[in-house]
């Protein structure tokens, strides 16, 4: 009980002190935001309070708090949230001096990419299947009943890829996957787990940094960038207009985009959004990107996907 009352008192203190601190709501990975917050405090002396969850949970909390916003800075894993927030007029427009080398397609008036994830095939090297090199390989009989996909409704990355398939007339690959017994398995982690254990051989539309992180831990899994091209999922960092502490919030964005911050981003195998940070992994410039030009609306893409897989 004493410990609990201590926790309560500390909690109360923290909540009153929160006005002077920067409050950051961040989508995963948790390790990244933790080291970014620690590095920021070490550098500036300003404390950063972190709430970390999935993009969906972060958005739900922001929406429920809308009448009395708590967050200063939001980091999401889906660029669509930035465009949506900008359209609603929720974002403070700020161009960080550190964003000079961030390519134009990774920044808007109110948001800039913190890092970028690539969408790949995650393949278990011990699965007794040939190594796939392109999306269409996974529709072949060798991979019958051995492929999982994250649900595009739950995974921003998968959604972006499916959208690009619609824009480029590649939907026959999706149909081929369905005919080959591929299953739709929840969010990114739910799709990866059966592949790690070997129940399935490959994730179609896996996330590169998660896969590379697992491989670094010793899992027999490999991230393969498909030959016909892929899409990237930039992760926007944005300052809310409602923030009571905009100056410190700007400092936080500056820190994330600093060389030090971008190196932290790279440590979890995300691509840094600044092009002048050298990292040992395929970067945005090295990737062949599929265009999203002419893609139908979100509802149509999801409905089309559902039609194929139900």
């Amino acid at each position, binding site marked *: *009980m004493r*410990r*609990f009352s201590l*926790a*309560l008192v500390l*909690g*109360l203190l*923290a*909540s009153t002190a*929160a006005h002077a601190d920067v*409050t950051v709501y961040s989508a*995963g*990975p*948790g390790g990244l935001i933790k080291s970014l917050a620690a590095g920021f405090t070490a550098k500036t002396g300003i404390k950063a*309070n*972190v709430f970390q*969850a*999935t*993009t*969906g*949970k972060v*958005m*739900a*909390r922001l*929406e*429920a*708090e*809308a*009448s*009395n916003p*708590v967050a200063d800075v939001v980091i*999401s894993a*889906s660029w*669509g*949230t930035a465009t949506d927030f900008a359209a609603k007029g929720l974002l403070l427009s700020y161009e960080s001096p550190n964003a000079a080398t961030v390519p134009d397609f990774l920044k808007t008036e109110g948001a800039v990419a913190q890092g970028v994830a690539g969408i790949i095939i995650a393949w278990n090297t*011990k699965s007794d299947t040939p190594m796939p090199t392109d999306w269409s390989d996974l529709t072949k009989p060798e991979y019958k009943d051995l492929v999982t996909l994250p*649900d595009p*409704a*739950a995974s921003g990355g998968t959604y972006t890829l499916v959208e690009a398939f619609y824009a480029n007339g590649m939907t026959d690959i999706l149909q081929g996957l369905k005919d080959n017994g591929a*299953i*739709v*398995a*929840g969010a990114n*982690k*739910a799709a*990866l*787990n*059966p592949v*790690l254990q*070997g*129940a399935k051989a490959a994730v179609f539309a896996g996330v590169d940094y*998660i896969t590379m*992180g*697992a491989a670094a*831990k*010793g*899992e*027999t*899994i490999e991230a393969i960038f498909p030959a016909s091209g892929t899409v990237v999922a930039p992760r926007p960092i944005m300052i809310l207009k409602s923030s009571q502490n905009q100056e410190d919030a700007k400092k936080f964005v500056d820190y994330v985009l600093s060389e030090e911050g971008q190196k932290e981003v790279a440590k979890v195998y995300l691509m840094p959004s600044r092009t002048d940070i050298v990292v040992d992994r395929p970067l945005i410039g090295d990737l062949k990107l599929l265009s999203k030009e002419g893609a139908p609306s979100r509802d149509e893409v999801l409905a089309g996907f559902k039609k194929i897989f*139900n």
Partner: protein
Amino acid sequence: MAGGSVATGAEGSSFLKWTATLGLLIVVAVPCLFIVVQAIFPEFGSGSFAAPFSLFFKTLADPDLFGLAGNTLILGVGTVVCAAILAVPIAALRALFRVPGALIWDALLLVPFMIPPYIAALGWIMTLQPRGYLEQVAGFNLAPLLFSVYGIMLIMGLNTFSVVYFVLSRTFETIGARYSDVGRVFGAGQWKSFWRITFPLAMPGLAASLLLVFAMSIEEYGTPAALGRRIGFEVLVTGIENRISEWPIDLPGAATLSLVLVSMALAAFTLQRWLLTRRDYRIVSGKPQASDKRRLGVWALPVVALFAFLSFLATGLPILAILATALTRTISGGLTPSNFGLDNFRELLGSGSDGLVALGNSLALGVTTALLAGLLGAITAYSVVKGRGRFRIVLDALSITPNSLPGVVVAVGIILAWNQPWLPVTPYNTPFILLLAYICILLPQPVRYATASLHQLGDNLEAAARVSGSGPLRAFVRIVLPLILPSMVTAMILVFAVASRELVASLLVAPIGFQTIAVYIWQQFDQGSAGLGMAMAFCALVITTLIPLVLVSLMRWISKGTVAGLN
């Protein structure tokens, strides 16, 4: 009641009535109200009352809704059937016969409460899927069974049947062999007297616990999300969770679907009330009763085998799967000797680990929630069962409502309610908010348990106390509370177990930077450290199982058998 007119001497004190009412208003009614308002006014989150009902009817008219509601009903009923089939026989055996090792089986069957459903589901998947642990050990897999609607029902039945087992074995025990002995004196056989006398008298316990299982299973998120999504079996809760957890967020839609879910639980609750009020089930009359249990004789071995088999399925297998994941360095390495190691436990228990802080937070919250929810639950049940007037139906309904509200919806309601800018002081963003959320979500458990045990309590004991000069409050504390204590201890252990591992609400309302066990586990999974997450799950499991066991043994030792039913 303030007039103090005493009819049977057992209609409760107005102090207790108002405590129950106020407690329920703050803990349950406020968040529920905000959810209803959110369902009606879609822009309410940003403080606007614009466009009322614009999304309400759209969501209700969604053709998917019938599928979701239908699947929810199928799953709820299927789980209740599975739980009843698994629990009723062993509960009867445990209560009426001397089962060898009874305390060990009790302890083992307590463990499923402590295993978070999402962890259990993950354990089952990793065991039964192709190339899973079962295939690695025994050479075959049961994936077709696991990834089916029956598989989900079976696993949820295994997760919940101990609720029925504990309530029912207590009830059978209270009834004892005495009533059925009367039947046997009049010539009924052993089976006949069980089915005609003992079993009908156990109806309150059975109805209460099966209703609890129904409500738990239509509210359960982890298992249907992990298993159902793969076979396209969506239920209301996963529909609600998807609307809240997947961008773009649809709070009004989630709130509307929650209202559908609540109405389903209320229907079940009405059914249970109807069952209970049709007859008189009072069996504790103050007459002393000898609790003599029969011997099993030649049946001892098969009965022990049955207990062992069920304990293994419900407790052993999930724990083995958790341990297998926690003790292996990589998942793809499988169960090979070179892949085993204590790395995950070392990282978890190492100095400066977030895991230890999370453990401390969750245990403190769990204990506080159990005490407060237990007390409020007992007072509420007492006001409902022994009180008079229409307010008690409102109280009863309020106390069951959260059972059918998914945790994530309670969380949203709580944020909407307690983060209003005009509040001078708010528990929001302090650990108190988690306490409020947990009490709200878990209050139905102690209320159900206390109600069932109060229904069996005759009025004359309390009347005797009143005749002897004690006031209503004193009669409650000295007579009623001790008599329902065994049931309350069971309920509070359940509350402690669930509160210390609650995930969905914690994830959303946890104060900034505050970690609980479940949030920690979830973050490990999210970062791809399944082994570390499972190591935490295992430690939490051991601690949350040991604390109640030690507590109960301590209470038995202190009371030295003077409090009935603690064995």
